[in-house]
């Protein structure tokens, strides 16, 4: 099933994005309904492609393996919630990838933060690797069954294992969607400035009077976003005359005290419903426009799990990052190849009954210079000769609590 | 003790039926109504939770003449213009008027379905006071009320139940249509009797008590004997094979079980095939100990 989907994506993506390789073969599965719908209307927007599942228009998050995890990409009109890691380093990185991808695809941006100036985030955007198109293809392309050269230099393994699916720990789909970025360099100013960017900076707007269920800062943000959507013609109701574009909305560290919110400060916050009301309004705005949002949230500061649950439910996608930095897991040999764990809290089902569930829930991420990669968590291969039985025991016990703690008991 | 309570509550009594999501006490409440009507008592019902039809379903016509339903179900908060009874009217004066309107000289039994509705909209102290005043007031002979205990804070439930002269807490029973009632009864002298009974309610709202309180401890040894029932009773496989079944089973060849001939053919190659003869010499590093340290030798 999974392979089929990949092939269909490559089928679909080739004419749309113009970046995927030519499809090797056309599968009999060919549901006409979604092709018709998506191609006729929205095919002209660069950096988008329709979803195989439901014909939803997708954009890349800028992180290829995250796209794969979310069922191909972020659906336009939805919100991705990222629960920040403790030091907000990796969540901020994903936010920057998301914005950088927007710059490269010539989408418009809307950046809001209460912590620092939106320009600070924009200046830190990673540099795109634009000449890499051919390189990762060779590496990344999963081998389809029955390729001739495959049988020639195939490794000889016991026949029992020959029919097992090849395990590919890094998550990736067969077709190229987003771009790659080099995090050691920042994006050149002229590329960055070519993109149209709307900034919302809280200190300009703040008027700290507020009621229990509404916060002035959130209302101002919502209003400013609505203005941009109306003015720049992202509204779906707007006439379809000129070429359409996508608005990427990045909201950094919502719910933190700097927004005037006390969610993180108290067990029983006074503005308990301010953020959820805002997210409801945000969903309402996005659903009626060509925009997509990534929201980060310092969830480790929020004590109330029930509240966290309703926040999650008001977003569409939700992932959580847990960095090993500063935790006892840093020294655990099980995790030595990774920078942190990634949990998928929620996947959306939009326009369809079934949501695409990830086939694996134990996921870890690492940040490499040219790639943020999300992989299936597994033990590193044991290559050293000095490994004794004792340390293996430790490893097993280290593995145990993490599995039970995250409730990811997989059949 | 449940049937004792059904036969009549003492004057000035307050009986509270406490239920939860898992088992509704409404049928028991309706049994109390039916029992009171059968005793030719006047019954007033404050009906919040369910419609009048649902509440009076199963009560027979001659008895229902003495039943006065004050239907607050369609409009308990007065959102439309003319509510029959609204939750704000849960006060001594209004309730007394209501009961007096029926112009019966005889004091009546007041049934509240349910107290939870009232408690959600009025302060618990006020509700408690009204209940106490009703008991002493004289217009009402006794009060029977239903309370959904899991909808309120423990303190609220506690203080309301503290007022009750009898408390019946119902929970689902061992079998589908049975329920367990925990009964606490306080007499005026201060004596407290407690009991636990299993009961079921039939179609015509009569309560059948299945196990008597006195027989409950005696039933224990019996029960434990039953509990020692055959552990092999509900197995998904069969332990007691008949002769023919056993034969059939033994005939089966399991997958990957080779016949004897095939096995010997595989293990002992026939004549003519080669053999490896090997004698270790000095160059062979033959070590007695476990070189990888991974065998338990």
């Amino acid at each position, binding site marked *: 099933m999974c392979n089929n989907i990949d092939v269909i994506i490559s089928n679909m993506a080739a004419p749309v994005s113009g970046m995927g390789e030519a499809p090797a073969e056309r599968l009999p599965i060919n549901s006409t309904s979604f092709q018709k719908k998506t191609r006729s209307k929205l095919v002209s927007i660069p950096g988008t492609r329709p979803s195989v599942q*439901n014909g939803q228009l997708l954009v890349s998050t800028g992180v290829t393996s995250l796209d794969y995890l979310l069922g191909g990409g972020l659906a336009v*009109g939805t919100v991705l919630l990222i629960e920040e890691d403790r030091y907000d380093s990796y969540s901020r990185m994903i936010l920057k990838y998301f914005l950088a991808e927007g710059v490269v695809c010539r989408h418009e941006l809307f950046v809001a933060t209460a912590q620092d100036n939106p320009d600070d985030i924009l200046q830190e955007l990673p540099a795109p690797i634009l000449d890499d198109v051919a390189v990762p293809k060779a590496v990344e392309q999963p081998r389809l069954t029955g390729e001739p050269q495959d049988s020639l230099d195939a490794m000889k393994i016991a026949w029992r294992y020959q029919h097992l699916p090849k395990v590919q720990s890094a998550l990736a789909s067969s077709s190229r969607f987003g771009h790659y970025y080099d995090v050691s360099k920042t994006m050149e100013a002229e590329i960055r400035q070519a993109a149209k960017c709307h900034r919302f900076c809280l200190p300009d707007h703040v008027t700290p009077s507020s009621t*229990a269920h509404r916060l002035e800062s959130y*209302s101002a943000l*919502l*209003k400013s976003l*609505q203005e941009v959507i109306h003015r720049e013609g992202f509204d779906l109701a707007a006439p379809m005359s000129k070429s359409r574009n996508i608005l990427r909305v990045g909201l950094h560290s919502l719910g933190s005290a700097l927004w005037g919110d006390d969610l993180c400060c108290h067990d029983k916050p006074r503005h308990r*419903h301010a953020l*959820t*009301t805002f997210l*409801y*309004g945000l*969903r*309402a705005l996005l*659903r*009626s426009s060509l925009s997509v949002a990534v929201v980060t949230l310092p969830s480790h500061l929020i004590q109330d*799990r*029930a509240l966290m*649950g*309703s926040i*999650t*439910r*008001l977003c569409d996608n939700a992932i959580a990052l847990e960095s090993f930095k500063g935790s006892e897991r840093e020294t655990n040999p099980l995790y030595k190849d990774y920078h942190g764990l990634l949990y998928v809290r929620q996947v959306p*089902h*939009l*326009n*369809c*009954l*079934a*949501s695409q*569930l990830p086939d694996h829930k134990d996921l870890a991420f690492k940040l490499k210079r040219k790639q943020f990669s999300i992989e299936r968590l597994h033990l590193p291969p044991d290559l050293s000769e000095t490994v004794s039985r004792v340390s293996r025991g430790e490893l097993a016990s280290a593995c145990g609590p993490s599995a039970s703690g995250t*409730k*990811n*008991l*997989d*059949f | 003790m449940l049937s004792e309570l059904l036969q009549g509550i003492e004057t000035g009594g307050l009986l509270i039926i406490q239920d939860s*999501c*898992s*088992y*509704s006490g409404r*049928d028991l409440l309706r049994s109390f109504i039916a029992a009171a009507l059968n005793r030719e008592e006047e019954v007033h019902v404050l009906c919040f*939770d369910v*419609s009048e*039809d649902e509440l009076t379903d199963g009560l027979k016509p001659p008895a229902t003449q003495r039943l006065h339903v004050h239907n607050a*179900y*369609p409009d*308990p908060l007065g*959102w439309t213009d003319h509510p029959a009874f609204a939750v704000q009217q849960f006060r001594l004066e209004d309730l007394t008027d209501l009961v007096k309107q029926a112009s019966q000289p005889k004091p009546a039994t007041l049934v509240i379905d349910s107290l*939870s509705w009232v408690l959600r909209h009025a302060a618990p102290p006020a509700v408690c006071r009204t209940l106490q005043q009703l008991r002493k007031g004289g217009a009402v002979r006794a009060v029977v009320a239903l309370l*959904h205990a*899991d*909808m*309120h*804070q*423990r*303190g609220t439930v506690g203080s309301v139940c503290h007022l009750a002269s009898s408390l019946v807490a119902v929970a*689902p029973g061992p079998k*589908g*249509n049975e329920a367990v009632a925990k009964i606490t009864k306080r007499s005026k002298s201060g004596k407290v009797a407690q009991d636990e009974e299993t009961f079921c*309610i039939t179609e015509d709202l009569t309560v059948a008590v299945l196990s008597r309180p006195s027989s409950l401890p005696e039933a224990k040894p019996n029960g434990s004997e039953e509990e020692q029932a055959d552990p092999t009773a509900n197995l998904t496989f069969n332990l007691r094979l008949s002769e023919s079944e056993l034969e059939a089973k033994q005939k089966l060849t399991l997958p990957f079980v080779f016949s004897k001939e095939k096995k010997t053919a595989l293990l002992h190659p026939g004549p003519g095939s080669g053999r490896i003869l090997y004698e270790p010499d000095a160059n062979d590093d033959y070590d007695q100990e476990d070189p990888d340290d991974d065998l338990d030798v």
Partner: protein
Amino acid sequence: MFTELNSILSSSPDSVTPGEFILVSDRQSDASFLIHHFLSFYLRSRCKVVFLGLVQSFRHYSAVSQRLGVSLTQAKEKGQLVFMEGLKESLSVLIPQADNTESQAMNFLRDPPVGLRSLYEFVRSGAVGSGRAEDGAEEWGPPVLLVDDVSVLLSLGVDAGAVLDFSHYCRAAVCSQMKGNMVMLVRCNGEEEEEEDGEEGAEALLKGLTHQCSLNLHVQGLPTGYCKDIHGQVEVCWKRRQGDGPHTQRNLFQYKVHDKGASFFPRGTSSAVL
């Protein structure tokens, strides 16, 4: 419409039991697929349907219904369906600048403590409109109210008591007075034992609604954890007497959601394990 669920509930679109209040609840799981079942079920049974879609856009419900073989747009045009798109309505209230208030239904957003009376009045007028056949328009069966989902009202600052009042009034009007049906979805995410003392919020709402309803479909994840082939289990709990049967009757099924429906099977009989 999932035929397997119909046979479990022994219901069919040809005969709708009057006065039913079906509560669909979930805990750390997602029961919204059942809402789509009931939406298509009642549209097929030619009932007048009032749908409060609070969490998704009309397009979403419409696209899913299309897969289940029902067209919402047509139903709307024919007057069978009254659809309130909460997201759309809320914007004019949440961003005060646009002050063209067409509908009063979402008025509670202005001041949540006031309660949901305006929403109830919207429901009532939508349901009542069914009775009279207007100049040659088709006549529809008893009204049905569907809400997806009520717990989002809590997130918008309405307290659980007000939601309970709202559902009580809707039940009195739709189920008892008009002999229609009502389906509500409520979502919880805490552990069952976590919250105690009837704390306000989703737990209290779930408990209160469970007391009100006549049938509860409770969806949970598998107790053994995540599994790709079995999406969870649904507990079917009848609150009212079914003929001679017991008062409360519970049945447990496991389910898997497909593209165009869902399959239900007794525990341990998934095609993935057999």
